[in-house]
């Protein structure tokens, strides 16, 4: 006799998690949009950590040295009344690959051979909200699903005890929620937001994760009563969704146990905490986010975004760059080292970058304007070519001129690395098929290992 779905689930419940959910997905994929699925082809990467540098970090002060700009410092720029502004910090050829990295990022520089630097990035809009929205969703005009939502829709989640798309300390004001939402994709593909930008990440968690009144035993007893009523109800109505509801309560019950452990960085060794610089006041908050990101992907979360907020340096470029680089350098390097030594870097795609870059000129001479025409990002792990530079901006850093990669191309490439064809990952809504890349996007083959 063919076992019923419930019998199947019950029999699998000892080793619950991936296996049982694969079974559930096969039985009724529509009910659990987060069931783990195969991509379109063999994937290089299976998880993503996106280090979102909000505000638009300067490319000529990080990973795109501009000797000509330094030489022309003080000469008139392209815009009236603006003078060219050279970078104050030298770059150093790093690693065997000799990738040039600014001296403000010594720890990151040590890992140059892991990085695949995209120096020819460009995007459509030069305002923060629109550019950030396009970076996250591909569109700045319309409400569209987030990159993480598409990935979750395409691949599901590996650990059914945890959310599949997590954004730590997101900026939720000013339309920021739009960057993490599923729009027309199933609601379950939305990001789970932990904490917000106003609060330190040490407190980042999700809502209602612990009972404020019952012990685990008492809550189990209460749940048993409810589930018994639910099973009666399922039998009475032949409503297949009730089965999904019953399972979601079981998942929630288990998540209460598992998620706090994943979020508890105190379980890390002293050596690891020191590696990230958790105790260091200058990098503490961002370090904590990096460590949480590693713990989450290690536990099977598909897509994690963390952010650093302060790259919009119109003024105080000097002090701002020193401060920001000090805050991210060690934690980011630690994340790459830690992922690698745990064997996770090969399958985890790490993305670093912001919504755009900066201008090579400025009237104030201690700040830089927004530049969407040329900037840099880097990728690491997850099947990308390490120690590789792709593309270039012009001599002053105004515009991408070689190996140009538009936001759509970046999205297409990220999906490709995850085993998803950006032209086939579609969702029908309002009468037509939608894609993350709309009608655009070319996979940047040159950067794939």
């Amino acid at each position: 006799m063919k076992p019923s779905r419930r019998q199947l689930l019950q029999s699998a419940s000892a080793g619950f998690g991936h296996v049982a959910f694969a079974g559930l997905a096969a039985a009724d994929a529509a009910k659990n949009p987060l069931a783990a699925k195969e991509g379109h082809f063999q994937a290089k990467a299976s998880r993503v950590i996106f280090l979102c540098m909000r505000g638009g970090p300067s490319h000529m002060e990080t990973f795109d040295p501009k000797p000509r700009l330094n030489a022309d410092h003080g000469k008139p720029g392209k815009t009236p009344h603006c003078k060219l502004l050279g970078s104050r910090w030298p770059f150093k050829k790093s690693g065997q690959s000799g990738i040039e990295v600014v001296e403000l990022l010594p720890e990151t520089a040590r890992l140059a051979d892991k990085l695949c630097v995209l120096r020819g990035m460009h995007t459509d809009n030069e305002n923060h909200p629109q550019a950030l929205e396009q970076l996250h969703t591909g569109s700045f005009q319309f409400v569209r699903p987030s990159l993480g939502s598409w990935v979750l829709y395409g691949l599901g989640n590996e650990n059914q005890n945890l959310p599949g798309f997590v954004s730590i300390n997101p900026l939720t004001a000013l339309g920021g929620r739009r960057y993490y939402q599923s729009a027309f994709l199933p609601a379950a593909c939305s990001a789970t937001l932990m904490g917000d930008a106003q609060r330190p990440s040490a407190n980042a968690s999700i809502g209602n994760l612990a009972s404020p009144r019952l012990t685990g035993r008492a809550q189990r007893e209460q749940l048993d009563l409810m589930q018994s009523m639910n099973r009666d109800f399922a039998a009475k109505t032949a409503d297949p969704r009730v089965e999904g509801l019953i399972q979601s309560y079981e998942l929630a019950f288990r998540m209460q146990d598992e998620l706090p452990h994943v979020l508890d960085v105190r379980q890390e060794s002293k050596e690891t905490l020191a590696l990230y610089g958790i105790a260091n006041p200058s990098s503490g908050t961002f370090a904590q986010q990096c460590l949480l990101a590693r713990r989450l992907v290690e536990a099977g979360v598909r897509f994690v975004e963390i952010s650093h907020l302060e790259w919009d340096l119109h003024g105080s470029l000097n002090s701002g760059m020193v401060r920001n680089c000090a805050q991210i350098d060690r934690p980011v390097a630690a994340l790459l080292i830690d992922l690698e030594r745990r064997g996770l870097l090969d399958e985890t795609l790490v993305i670093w970058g912001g919504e755009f870059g900066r201008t090579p000129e400025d009237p104030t001479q201690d700040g830089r304007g927004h530049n969407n025409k040329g900037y840099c990002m880097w990728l690491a792990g997850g099947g990308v070519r390490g120690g590789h530079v792709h593309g270039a901006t012009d001599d002053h850093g105004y515009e991408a001129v070689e190996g140009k990669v538009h936001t759509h191309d970046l999205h297409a490439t990220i999906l490709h690395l995850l085993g998803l064809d950006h032209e086939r990952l579609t969702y029908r809504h309002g009468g037509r098929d939608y894609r993350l890349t709309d009608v655009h996007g070319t996979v940047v083959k040159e950067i794939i290992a």
Partner: protein
Amino acid sequence: MDVPYDQFLREQVAGDLLPASDPRQADRQRIATGFLAMGPKAFEESKPDVFRMDVIDEQIEVIGRSILGLSIGCARCHDHKFDPIPTRDYYAIAGILGGTETLYGHGTRGIKATAFHNTALQPVGPDAPRLAKAGQDYLDTLQALTLKQNTARSDRYRVVRWLSDAKVQLGKPGADAAKLQPEIERLNALIGEWDIKVKAAETELSNWQDHAPEMPGWAMASRDKPAPVNCRIHVRGEVTNLGEEVPRGVLRVLPNPAGRISPSSSGRLELAGWLAGAKNPLTARVYVNRVWQHLFGQGLVTTPDDFGVNGSRPSHPQLLDYLALRFIGHGWSTKKLVRELVTSRTYQLSSQPVPASLAADSENTLAWRMSPRRVDAESLRDAILVVSGRLNPARPSSEILAAVHPYRHGEFTTFKPQFGQELYDSPHRGVYLPVIRGLPPEMFQLFDFPSAERPTSRRDESTVPAQALFFMNSPWVISESRRATAGLLSNPTRDDATRVNQLFERAFSRKPTPDEVKQALAYLSGPADTAFTGPGHVSKAEADARPERWTSLVQAILGSAEFRTLK
């Protein structure tokens, strides 16, 4: 009220242009045109032309999807890929809406980049004629003074940055002190001048705020611009790439033409008449399908926003035609339509499954039974308040937001994100809660409340662990469960079996079976086991008392599948 749907549409789209027999009616009709003004706006957009076309696009998209079931918005950049809607038709309608001034108030006030925004609102109320001019002048000056203050502040700050840069230069080895020192002094003096200017601007603004005149009511609305003009085709949707001019008009593929648009009017009245005309083949069908979906759980056409080529075919085409024609014949009366549907045999079918039917049509496309369905977020919240005994079914006496938000006159769109969940802790029905874009209440976010940034015709029915956690652990659910418990235990003469009956009737609208009563009583007799006692929580003695056990029972009922399902 049963405003005929065709009249409703005319008022929403062109109420300001319709005749009115008295000022109250005129106000009502003007307020209706807020429909065109209240969509989401990209206030960050610094290019006025782009902003203007985005507003028009949002209006076209909402009109197209909600009234006609067509995605006209696709034709902004290219001829519609599937439906016979050329770009030309899009810009014919865009011309009509471009000739309309949308009174949406203002976005973030006092930012130079967005200073082009219209600050006007529609004055309403009996005193409007007397107060409007002074009120609007006040608001305009308020905007100008805020901008002046902020500009002065940022201009001053620029000098501060120059100064700090000069000081850095001076600190470097080999610095040209002879040149830099006077520069630093000059900048210091300049900052002194700016300090005075900034102070003056701040004082001027704050004085102005202290002398607000008596205000009329203000509403978002629409009105015709003095001289309407046709719109030119925006090639690929770009404002910088203008093609030929298109006469103002409507979609040409539909068989009913619009009335002639006179050169001196926007054409909005004709657009409204065309949308709401009895000969428009879509409007009535799209509407009755929505009402059907609302009552039966899924529409005869399962894509209510898309009656185009890519939409799904109706499951019962003749029924849809019949209902649409009856609807028009009955004067577009929503009440008559609802009465006809709910008194039908189909509506009165139970949700009881029939194995043979289930095997033949598991999706219930043919409506052989009532489809069990999820209770939506607002109703779920209301139902919890019914069980706890806290629901106030009356309409709130004033807008809930007005009681919380200390806004100054006219500041309708600058809500700060610091609103907490307390905003939503009202005993009134969920339908009266404010909807602030980007800030839905926690419970609504969890239970598939649609985004307020785009039209949504069908809600998701998601099942995620975060919902389960809400029922298991949310302090709000627990406090409502305690409240329900207090009510159940308030009559000491009742026995527990009677109370269980009472709880089931209130939560499920049915009596419990004998087995269910037995199960509940057995649960109630178990030991309490609370994790947290002491300060801030119940005491140990209270925790062990029966009310806490009752609270757990109520909470289990609220979280159950039956409570969350309409059947």
